[in-house]
C-alpha cells in the first residue's frame, strides 16, 4: 500500500491517470489532428454516409407528397417542405399491412421461442451431460448451420405440402427453427461453458435432479446468452424471405417482406411513397429492438463466429 502511494507521489501524472488504468487513449497522441482528419475522420464519414443514405432516402420518400416525388427540378429532392403522412395512413388503413405485421410477429416469436427451448436442452446436453458422441453431435449441428435455405426450399416445399402445412403460418413456424436451432445451440454452448461446473456439482450433491439444475442454476446464469440468442433469432426470422415466398400463397397469410414485394408492385406510378412507407414501418420494430439491446446483439454475432 505504501509502495503504491510513494510511486504515485513520485510521478504526478500517474496520480491523474493510474486509478482507472485507462488505455483507451492508446497511442493516438502520437498523431496530429490534421493527420487524423485525413486518415480517420474523412474516410469514416464517407463510409457512414454511404451506409446510412438509403435509410434517409427511404424515410424521406415515405413522407414526401406525390407531386414532389417525381418532380425533381422544381424543388430540391434532398428535402421536403410539405411532409405528409398520407402514405403511412394509406398503408395502415387501406391495405392488409397491419395483418402482415401481425403474421410476421407471430411467426417470428413462435419460431424463436420453439428454437430457443430446443437449443437450451441440446446445448446443455452437449456441454454438461457429455453423453456418448456429444462431440460429434456438436460438430453436426455446426454443419447444419452451414446448410443454406436456398438449396433446401425446393424439397422443403414438397415436405410442407406432404404434411399439409402449405399456406399456413405453421409452414414457417416449423421450418424457421432449422435455421435458428443450429445458430442458437452453438451460441448457448459457448455460454454454458462459461458457467462454473462446481455450482452444478454442489447441486448434484444436494440431491438436485438435472432438470432442477437446468431450471434453477444454469438458466438464471445464462440470461444474457438467452437474450442474445432471442434477439438474433428474431431478427433472422424477420429477415427470412425465400421460405415465406415459397410456402405461402394467399395475401392474408403473407409476411411483411414477401407482401411488400408482391402486393405493392401494381404498375402505379405513385407506388413509391407507399412502398417506402411499408419498408420503413417494417424495419422500425427491429431497429427499436436493436437500439435497446445493441450489446447483446453484437455479442450474439461475434459469439457465433468465435465458436
Amino acid at each position, binding site marked *: 500500500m505504501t509502495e503504491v502511494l510513494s510511486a504515485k507521489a513520485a510521478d504526478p501524472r500517474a496520480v491523474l491517470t493510474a486509478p482507472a488504468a485507462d488505455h*483507451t487513449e492508446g497511442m493516438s497522441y502520437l498523431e496530429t489532428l490534421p493527420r487524423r482528419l485525413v486518415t480517420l475522420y474523412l474516410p469514416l464519414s464517407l463510409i457512414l454516409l454511404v451506409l446510412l443514405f438509403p435509410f434517409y432516402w427511404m424515410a424521406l420518400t415515405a413522407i414526401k407528397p406525390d407531386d414532389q416525388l417525381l418532380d425533381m427540378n422544381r424543388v430540391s429532392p434532398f428535402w421536403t417542405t410539405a411532409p405528409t403522412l398520407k402514405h403511412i395512413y394509406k398503408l395502415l388503413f387501406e391495405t392488409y399491412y397491419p395483418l402482415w405485421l401481425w403474421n410476421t410477429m407471430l411467426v417470428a416469436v413462435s419460431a424463436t421461442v420453439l428454437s430457443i427451448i430446443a437449443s437450451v436442452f441440446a446445448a446443455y446436453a452437449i456441454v454438461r451431460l457429455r453423453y456418448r458422441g456429444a462431440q460429434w*453431435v456438436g460438430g453436426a449441428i455446426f454443419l*447444419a448451420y452451414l446448410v*443454406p435455405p436456398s438449396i433446401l426450399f425446393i424439397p*422443403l416445399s414438397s415436405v410442407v405440402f406432404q404434411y399439409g402445412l402449405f399456406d399456413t403460418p405453421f409452414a414457417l413456424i416449423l421450418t424457421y427453427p432449422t435455421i435458428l*436451432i443450429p445458430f442458437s445451440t452453438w451460441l448457448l454452448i459457448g455460454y454454458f461453458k462459461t458457467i462454473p461446473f462446481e455450482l452444478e456439482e454442489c447441486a448434484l450433491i444436494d440431491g438436485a435432479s438435472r432438470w432442477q439444475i437446468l431450471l434453477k442454476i444454469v438458466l438464471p446464469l445464462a440470461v444474457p446468452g438467452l437474450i442474445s440468442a432471442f434477439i438474433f433469432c428474431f431478427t433472422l426470422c424477420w429477415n427470412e424471405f425465400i421460405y415465406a415466398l415459397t410456402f405461402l400463397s394467399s395475401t392474408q397469410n403473407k409476411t411483411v417482406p414477401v407482401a411488400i414485394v408482391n402486393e405493392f408492385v401494381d404498375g402505379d406510378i405513385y407506388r413509391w411513397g407507399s412502398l417506402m412507407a*411499408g419498408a420503413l414501418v417494417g424495419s422500425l420494430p427491429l431497429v427499436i429492438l436493436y437500439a435497446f439491446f445493441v450489446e447483446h446483439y453484437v455479442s450474439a454475432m461475434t459469439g457465433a*463466429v*468465435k465458436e
Partner: protein
Amino acid sequence: MADLAIHADRAVPREPTAWARLKVNRNWLGFWFMMPAAAFLILFLAYPLFLGVWLSVTDARIGQPGVFVGAENYEWLWDDTVFWLSVFNTLLYTGVASVIKFAVGLYLALLLNENLPFKAILRAVVLIPFIVPTVLSAIAFWWIFDAQFSIVSWSLRHLGLISSNIDFLGDTWNARWSVIFVNIWRGVPFVAITLLAGLQTVPPSLYEAATIDGASRWQMFWHITYPLLTPIIAVVMTFSVLFTFTDFQLIWVLTRGGPVNATQLMATLSYQRAILSGHLGEGAAISTAMVPFLLGAILISWFGLQRRKWQQGESND
C-alpha cells in the same frame, strides 16, 4: 463395541431400481434432452436435404410425384446456356463482393478501433444495414436505382458529370455491378463488427513495442494485426462467401434475374425453374449443383486462412 452397534443400526443401502439408475444415466438423459432439436433438424433439414438429391434425379413436377430418370436433369443442364450463365454470374457475384466486403470491412474495423468520440454510438449505427431486413433495404435501393427518378443520376447530372440518366438495372453490366454494390453495402457491417471484436483482443502493448522499434503503420498491420486476426478472418469470410453464394432475396427484389438473365444466380434460377415453372426435378438439380461449389468455397476460405499452430502457443512445423 460401540462401533459395531452403529454399523448394525445403519440401514443397508437399497439397490437402486432400474428407473432410478436410468434417471441419472448420461446417455439416456442426453437422448431426451437432444430430442426436440433433433426432431426439427431431422424432419426439416436432413430429410429435405436427401429428398432434394432424390428429386434432382426424377422428373417431379408440382403436385405430381416423379419417376426416376437418372442423370437426365443434369444432362439437360449441361447443355443449357442459361444455367452456365447463372454459374458465371454467381461466381462473379461471390468473388467480387466477398473480396471488396473483406477489404472495406477490415478497413472500417481498423477505423472504428481507433480512439474516437462517440465510439459506442458509431459502432451501433454501423450495424444498422445488417439489422434492417434485406428485402426492405433492397426496396430502397430499387428506388435509388430507378431508371427515371434515380437520385444518383440526378446528383451526377447536376454536378455535370453525366449528360443522361444511368440505366442502373436495365443494362447487363450496370445491373451486375448494381446488385454487387448492394450486396457489399449490406455485408460490410457484419464483416467490420466481427473483425472489430477480433481487433479488440490484440494487446496494445504489441503496438507500443513495435512503435519503439520504429515500425511503420503498414509493418504493424502486416506483422501484428493481420497474423493475430487470421483465425477470425477465416470464419467470417467462410460465412460471408457462403451467404453471398446462396443469395436470393436481393436479386429477387432488384432485378428478378433480369435483364435477360444478366443477374440470374443459381438460387434465383432454381426458384424460377422449380416453383414458377413447376419443374421441381430440374430446380432440385440446380440446387444440388450448388453443393460442390459451396463445399469448394468453404474449403478454400477455411484452409486458405487456417489458424497456424504458433497462434495457439505451439511451434510451427
